[in-house]
């Protein structure tokens, strides 16, 4: 009998690391080709996002933001992967992936309006190739296969990149998505950000598989597990996956090992109910900003001054964006009726009149 033992396959999924926690290159062959300017830009984005996250949490607590899923800890996983994209590539984010959306072109004001639950937040500018954040776990996986098929049919040299969490790999749509992408051999990249907890349920309880990356094998696509706290590893894996996809070599599933320091969302989740302080501390030692800062300082590419400038810039931008969001007119029911269809069906046309009258009183 020649049954394949799963542990033989798992062994092949070693974690790709380029930069260790001390900011030292540990894998010379895998160092991505990034200019000094690109390296500092990536650092700027991570610092910017850390500040933004802190501000968002505080605004949420003041009742000035609304729905928010904290991102601290996941900056490398999020931003270094988006950094490998071209402007014309498509982004299909989950609800935590707002930073990637913003660096892909969504104005910060709209991100805040989305958090507040305002329809203007969903009006993505025409030149930004992205869908708004997906709420239903893994629904974006099948959609990414569709976007990528469209790109292939149009002969475009672009990809569809989708983000989801570790819990999403339990969903049927995840398997359908990677299977469709494989069956049609389309330029799609699937990134499972494994922050180890689907709200409270640890990844060990989601699956017996030791890695999420190995799930690619059953779909006949490429899979890789990377240190998601290492921006260079995340960038390198995404860049390679993108190049393969564009070259017609098919989709890739990337698993990034990461951690969210904060709660699942700001709607009352308490991580102390399911995570230990020891585990939090262990992951905070792997922090992406700390190791990347050390690396860049070693290359004389980052300084305290640069850090402070970035922090100030973030604070200024956030202040301006919140101010702009505050000035956006409040939503009316008639607005919501009008965004349902291109041409209103007769029932809604009637209801539009009804609400127009109500709103004029």
């Amino acid at each position, binding site marked *: 009998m020649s049954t394949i033992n799963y542990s033989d396959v798992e062994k092949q999924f070693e974690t790709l690391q380029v930069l260790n926690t001390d900011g030292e290159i540990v894998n010379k062959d895998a160092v991505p080709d990034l200019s000094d300017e690109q390296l500092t830009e990536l650092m700027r984005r991570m610092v910017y996002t850390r500040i933004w996250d802190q501000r968002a949490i505080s605004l949420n607590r003041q009742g000035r933001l609304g729905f928010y899923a904290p991102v601290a800890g996941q900056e490398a996983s999020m931003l270094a992967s988006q950094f490998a994209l071209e402007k014309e590539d498509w982004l299909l984010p989950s609800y935590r992936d707002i930073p990637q959306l913003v660096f892909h072109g969504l104005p910060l004001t709209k991100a805040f309006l989305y958090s507040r639950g305002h329809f203007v937040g969903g009006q993505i500018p025409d030149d930004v190739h992205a869908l708004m954040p997906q709420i239903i776990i893994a629904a974006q996986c*099948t*959609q990414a296969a*569709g976007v990528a098929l469209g790109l292939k049919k149009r002969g475009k040299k672009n990809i569809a990149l989708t983000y989801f969490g570790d819990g999403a790999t339990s969903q049927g749509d995840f398997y359908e998505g990677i299977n*469709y992408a494989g069956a049609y051999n389309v330029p799609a990249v699937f990134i499972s950000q494994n922050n180890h907890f689907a709200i409270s349920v640890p990844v060990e309880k989601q699956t017996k598989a030791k890695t999420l990356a190995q799930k690619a094998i059953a779909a006949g696509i490429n899979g890789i597990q990377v240190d998601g706290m290492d921006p260079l590893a995340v960038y390198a894996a995404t860049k390679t996956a993108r190049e393969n996809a564009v070259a017609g070599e098919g989709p890739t599933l990337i698993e990034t090992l990461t951690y969210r320091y904060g709660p699942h969302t700001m709607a009352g989740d308490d991580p102390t109910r399911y995570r230990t302080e020891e585990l939090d501390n262990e992951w905070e030692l792997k922090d992406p900003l700390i190791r990347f800062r050390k690396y860049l300082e070693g290359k004389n590419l980052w300084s305290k001054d640069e850090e402070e400038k970035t922090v100030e810039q973030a604070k200024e931008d956030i202040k301006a964006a919140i101010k702009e969001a505050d000035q956006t007119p409040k939503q009316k029911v008639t607005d919501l009726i009008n965004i*349902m269809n291109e041409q209103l069906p007769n029932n*809604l046309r009637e209801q539009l009149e009804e609400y127009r009258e109500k709103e004029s009183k």
Partner: protein
Amino acid sequence: MAQMTMAQAITDALRTQLKNDDNVVIFGEDVGQNGGVYRVTEGLQAEFGEERVFDTPLAESGIGGLALGLTLNGFRPVMEIQFFGFVFEAMDAVVSQIARLRYRSGGKHGAPVVVRSPFGGGVKTPELHADSLEGLFAQSPGLKVVIPSNPYDAKGLLISAIKDNDPVIFLEHMKLYFSFRDEVPEGEYTVEIGKANIVREGTDVTIITYGAMVQTSLKAADKLAEEGINAEVIDLRTVSPIDVDTIVESIKKTNRAVVVQEAQKQAGIAATVVAEINDRAILDLEAPVGRVTAPDTVFPYAAAEEVWLPNDKDIVEKVKEIVNF
């Protein structure tokens, strides 16, 4: 003009739009070389190539996700759910994703997707093939639900659906696929979505129905005529949105109404029609509005179809009850 069955008319509509619009793509399970389990996509892959007409893996949610994704690069997907009972597997893709895309994008981008699917009783299918699920979709904001009752309407409505910039559920009653032929014009023509059709004029009572029950109601109307009752029959053609104006106008003339549907009674299209009549024409009524529907069980096992499905006798009886109220 050619005589066509409803299945042929639907194929003709698909062929016409594949020809007229390069962005139209057709996909689903077995729709390619096999031409679909009802042969509705027969010959289309050979004529337009695998780029335009293609098979999908056997996963309905994936079909829905694929459709939504394709719209972002300007395609107009016509996706097939092999039998409408399988749509539960794609409920999230259709109702939470495709139907909401325009709202979610603040009105900017609709999903010009047509979900085509066979349904309906009387052909003795296994479980979860024949169920009338239109009520679920009629209650889902962002979707139009179209159910043709004859070959001419089927082609015109399907072309309208494909040209619509928002999603349309297009349900094809299996019993109507091959049961009769109609004159069907060549090339592109449209039948307006949201517009009912008076298929038989009458003065004494209005029968409001759709799908295969149009034929059943016409049969009932013939029997009623023999007894001196002159029934008007309205084919809704679109069950969401409902053409309330045509219904109200008819009731103003007949002062009596019976709503007929193949689906179960609870919370469906017939219930909505009754409510609309109540809102708009209650003072024109001489009797309560009657309803003929199936009972509130799941769609029956094949051998019980004949006793479960509403028939012309049920309609005759209900109409007489309302006329003699």
